[in-house]
């Protein structure tokens, strides 16, 4: 039983002198094995206690035996021997007075645990290279940056220009998200995929398990004549049972027979920074005539591999030049130059910022822990002046004293590290369960060897650091001190401890301010009116597929029929369809329109456009402001409904009803799009994010844009989940071959928006409370010691007629200085540090007065709480006892 434990013990026995080990080693190991067996019967706690006792025993008696051993070989390991002696002394000192280590180790463990857990996250997500060939050379190209920092998607025409004119890329690919219903190998299922240009797999470097990637010319093969498709290993396994002869076979996707030409390995990570769903197929991107010429049609991602020898900076300069040229040539469509960023940055964008912010917060908590322990050690070193002076008198050198004190604190650090590892393990589980992090590799986060090594290294350094200042003071004080002299050094020490407390307050304040700002952000977001009523609404997606839906009329008929059936279903009060829901993460339809201005002159505007039925507005309770909604008639095919943002942009205060607009841009003389007439204005809604202002949007009736994939929204008077089965039944009745995808209450989208800020509030509150508690503890410790040391002085004051209130004031004066310095410095530090999280804030500035005032208030409250007990003790000093004591 436990052969590994016994082996470990045998290793530890090497600390004993060799003759002793030869004589008793086997026997001691046997004894240890017996005791381990006995302890294991009693449970984990007994085993832990056994290890602790055994460690102390071995260290203490091995060094004692070595000292006693008559033969000894002082030349060999003289340093090691004294080191062992010092280690044993340090351990004995902790065992005899366990108060310090019992208090200090958990305090350090909090900081060490947080840091270890975050290290594990960073190790899993940021430090792990993406599974591409030379991932450092892969960059994403964007038309610009959105206010939230995400990249703005590109038009095909721009991509084609970049490809033709730039000299920085070995190859440049473009792609877009896609999805379709898969009919083979089981129930119909909607799968997510991507349409890609032929360069795609070359840019990223293969990872093809079987067959090939998408090749030039694939897009020219007719969609029903076996156009090639590449599928993911997961899809191959799920739907085709890993059939080794899958290549060249066909599968039915979105009603089309597609020829499978390759399987992509499971390690491949599709470079999609927005799309939450798995990408399981890659299909050739077909390029239409409009795509080639329309620079305003932004919907594609672009990714490139830098040419050999080209640096990112050179590529940026090259592309910026091209981007500026295009801005000059086409000011209407090209409003910004080009942004280039390493692919890792784009995929881990959210996680990176979050990881850094949290790492900084965790570092602050650790530093606060360190400050407290330095504080305690300074006090302890002061108390131990007697002991240390005796050791000096017995001939201990400075180096030896310093070493021992540093060893003592290193042991504290390591004990904290061990506890911290446990905390990190728990922390990672909590983090993975609750944190809204979606980054490649996040699920591989664990306390592995690297994290354990990090924890040990950090705790050793931390522990040693804690001991340095007290040790340095002892070493310095020694120069001038003699036994019994209690003079200035004690005073100096207490001054250092006061500075430490001020520093702690200053460090804790930014943590509290951060928590306050994030809480204000969350409250702000919860009160945002998204422009629609998500409650009682249930949504899902349906994609028509199969030969039955080859005509537009069939699609129109199907969705009309489905709406009818849904409205008739029990519990449903409204139903409608739309191309993409607000806050649903899909924003793939935007474009440019030309409209007849108030003064008769045409102008253009970028808008989001959707196709919908009138039922959609009812289902989400989007208010009609003016005019009417369209109906399903053929006559209304050229009707359009716009939101009030679009109305204001285009016609200001004027009445938009009856005005005309059409898709396309002013610079396109060949625009053959039909003119559409505005029939109604609806309220604007926040489509992309709760934190983003509504965009101008236009809605066309579904019969004018009969897409095969539509989001269906139903409204009920009760719980949205309760109508799930009747809704499914309605879809089945309309067509049993179609899949109901991602059915969920619309409130899930709102929750999805709030998940990150909620997590931020919880996490930052934990950090803030810990920071305050640690700083308050520091103040408490300093004041308590001050009261203890000054009992006599207080006694004299009282004896001479000072009131107890005066004593209290004395103590208050002492703490006010510390707290005030901490507050001022802390506010300055916060003003600087909150800039870092400015991008995470909403509805509140980084210098929000309320958050700052509240945080200072919390700091003062915790300072008062910390000072309460010492002050009471001081006021209750009995002058008679105090004076007799010395």
């Amino acid at each position, binding site marked *: 039983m436990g052969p590994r434990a016994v082996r470990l013990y045998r290793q530890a026995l090497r600390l*004993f002198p060799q003759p*002793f080990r030869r*004589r*008793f080693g*086997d*026997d*001691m190991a*046997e*004894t*240890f094995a*017996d*005791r381990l067996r006995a302890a294991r019967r009693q449970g984990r706690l007994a085993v832990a206690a056994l290890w602790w*006792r*055994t460690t*102390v*025993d*071995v260290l*203490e*008696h*091995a060094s*004692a*035996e070595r000292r006693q051993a008559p033969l000894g070989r002082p030349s060999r390991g003289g340093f090691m021997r004294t080191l062992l002696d010092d280690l044993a002394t340090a351990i004995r000192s902790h065992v005899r007075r366990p108060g310090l280590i019992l208090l200090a180790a958990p305090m350090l463990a909090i900081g060490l645990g947080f840091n270890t857990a975050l290290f594990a996250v960073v190790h899993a997500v940021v430090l792990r290279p993406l599974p591409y060939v030379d991932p450092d050379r892969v960059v994403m190209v964007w038309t610009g940056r959105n206010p939230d920092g995400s990249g703005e998607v590109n038009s095909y025409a721009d991509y084609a220009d970049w490809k033709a004119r730039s000299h920085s890329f070995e190859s440049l690919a473009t792609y877009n998200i896609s999805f379709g219903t898969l009919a083979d190998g089981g129930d119909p299922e909607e799968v997510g995929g991507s349409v890609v240009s032929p360069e795609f797999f070359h840019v990223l470097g293969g990872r093809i398990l079987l067959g090939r990637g998408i090749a030039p010319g694939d897009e020219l093969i007719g969609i029903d004549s076996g156009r090639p498709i590449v599928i993911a290993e997961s899809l191959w396994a799920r739907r085709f049972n890993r059939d080794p002869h899958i290549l060249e076979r066909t599968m039915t996707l979105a009603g089309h027979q597609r020829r499978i030409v390759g399987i992509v390995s499971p390690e491949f990570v599709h470079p999609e920074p927005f799309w939450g769903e798995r990408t399981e197929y890659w299909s050739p991107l077909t390029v239409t005539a409009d795509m080639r010429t329309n620079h305003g049609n932004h919907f594609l991602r672009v990714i490139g591999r830098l040419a050999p020898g080209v640096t990112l900076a050179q590529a940026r300069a090259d592309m910026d030049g091209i981007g500026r040229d295009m801005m000059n040539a086409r000011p209407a469509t090209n409003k910004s130059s080009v942004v280039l960023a390493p692919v890792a940055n784009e995929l881990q964008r959210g996680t990176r910022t979050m990881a850094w912010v949290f790492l900084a917060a965790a570092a602050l908590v650790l530093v606060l822990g360190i400050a407290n322990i330095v504080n305690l050690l300074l006090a302890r070193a002061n108390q131990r002046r007697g002991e240390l002076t005796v050791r000096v008198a017995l001939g201990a050198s400075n180096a030896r004293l310093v070493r021992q004190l540093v060893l003592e604190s290193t042991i504290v650090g390591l004990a904290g590290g061990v506890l911290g590892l446990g905390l990190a393990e728990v922390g990672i589980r909590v983090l993975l369960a609750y944190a809204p992090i979606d980054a490649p590799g996040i699920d591989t986060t664990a306390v592995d060897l690297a994290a354990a090594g990090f924890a040990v290294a950090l705790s050793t350094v931390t522990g040693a650091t804690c001991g340095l200042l007290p040790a340095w003071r002892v070493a310095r004080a020694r120069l001038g001190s003699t036994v019994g002299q209690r003079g200035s050094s004690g005073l100096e020490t207490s001054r250092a401890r006061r500075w430490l407390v001020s520093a702690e307050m200053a460090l804790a304040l930014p943590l509290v301010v951060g928590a306050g700002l994030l809480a204000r952000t969350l409250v702000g977001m919860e009160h945002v009116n998204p422009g629609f009523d998500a409650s009682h609404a249930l949504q899902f997606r349906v994609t028509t597929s199969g030969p039955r839906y080859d005509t537009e009329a069939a699609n129109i008929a199907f969705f009309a029929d489905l709406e009818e059936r849904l409205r008739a279903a029990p519990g449903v009060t409204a139903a409608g369809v739309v191309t993409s829901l607000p806050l649903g993460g899909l924003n793939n339809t935007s474009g440019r329109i030309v409209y007849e201005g108030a003064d008769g002159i045409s102008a253009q505007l970028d808008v989001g456009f959707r196709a919908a039925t009138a039922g959609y507005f009812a289902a989400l309770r989007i208010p009609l402001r003016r005019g009417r909604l369209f109906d399903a008639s053929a006559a209304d095919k050229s009707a359009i409904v716009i939101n009030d943002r679009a109305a204001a942009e285009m016609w200001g205060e004027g009445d938009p009803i009856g005005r005309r607009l059409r898709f396309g841009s002013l610079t396109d003389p060949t625009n053959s799009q039909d003119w559409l007439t505005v029939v109604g204005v609806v309220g604007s809604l926040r489509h992309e994010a709760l934190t983003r202002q509504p965009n101008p949007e236009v809605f066309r009736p579904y019969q004018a844009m009969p897409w095969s994939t539509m989001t269906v929204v139903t409204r009920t008077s009760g719980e949205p989940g309760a109508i799930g089965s009747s809704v499914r039944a309605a879809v089945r009745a309309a067509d049993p071959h179609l899949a109901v995808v991602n059915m969920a209450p619309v409130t899930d989208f709102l929750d999805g928006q709030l998940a990150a800020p909620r997590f931020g509030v919880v996490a930052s509150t934990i950090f803030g409370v810990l920071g305050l508690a640690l700083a308050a503890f520091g103040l408490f410790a300093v004041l308590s010691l001050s009261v203890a040391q000054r009992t006599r002085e207080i006694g004299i004051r009282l004896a001479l007629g000072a009131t107890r209130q005066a004593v209290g004031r004395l103590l208050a004066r002492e703490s006010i200085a510390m707290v005030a310095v901490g507050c001022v410095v802390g506010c300055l530090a916060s003003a600087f540090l909150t800039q870092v999280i400015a991008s995470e804030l909403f509805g509140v500035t980084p210098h929000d007065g309320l958050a700052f005032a509240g945080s200072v208030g919390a700091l003062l409250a915790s300072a008062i709480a910390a000072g309460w007990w010492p002050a009471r003790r001081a006021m209750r000093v009995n002058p008679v006892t105090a004076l007799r004591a010395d």
Partner: protein
Amino acid sequence: MPPRPDLDAFLPLKPVSFQVLLSLVDGERHGYAITQDIASRTSARMHIEPGNLYRALRTMLDEGLIEESGRRPAPDLDDERRRYYRITSFGRRVATAEIARLETMIAEAKSKKWARAR
């Protein structure tokens, strides 16, 4: 046997040594059995860690208070790597002397009517 030094040189015995001798008075024991016996006899007041025990055993072996026993229980009963210790006659005499010393001390204390008064 080499001449033994004066008994008094060993007195007072260290508490650990004394307890070890008491354990071995009943018969031979191995290290773990000694700690077990001491723990049960003193109702766990005295917990002896192996490092401590074997250092005491080393000293007592060197001083001739105890010796290693060549005997082993039946091999199937125990691990043969275990060493057994037994008390020497000299060790017995030292233990007796220690007990006598302790008894004298207690008698002195009692004669002061102090021990009982407490």
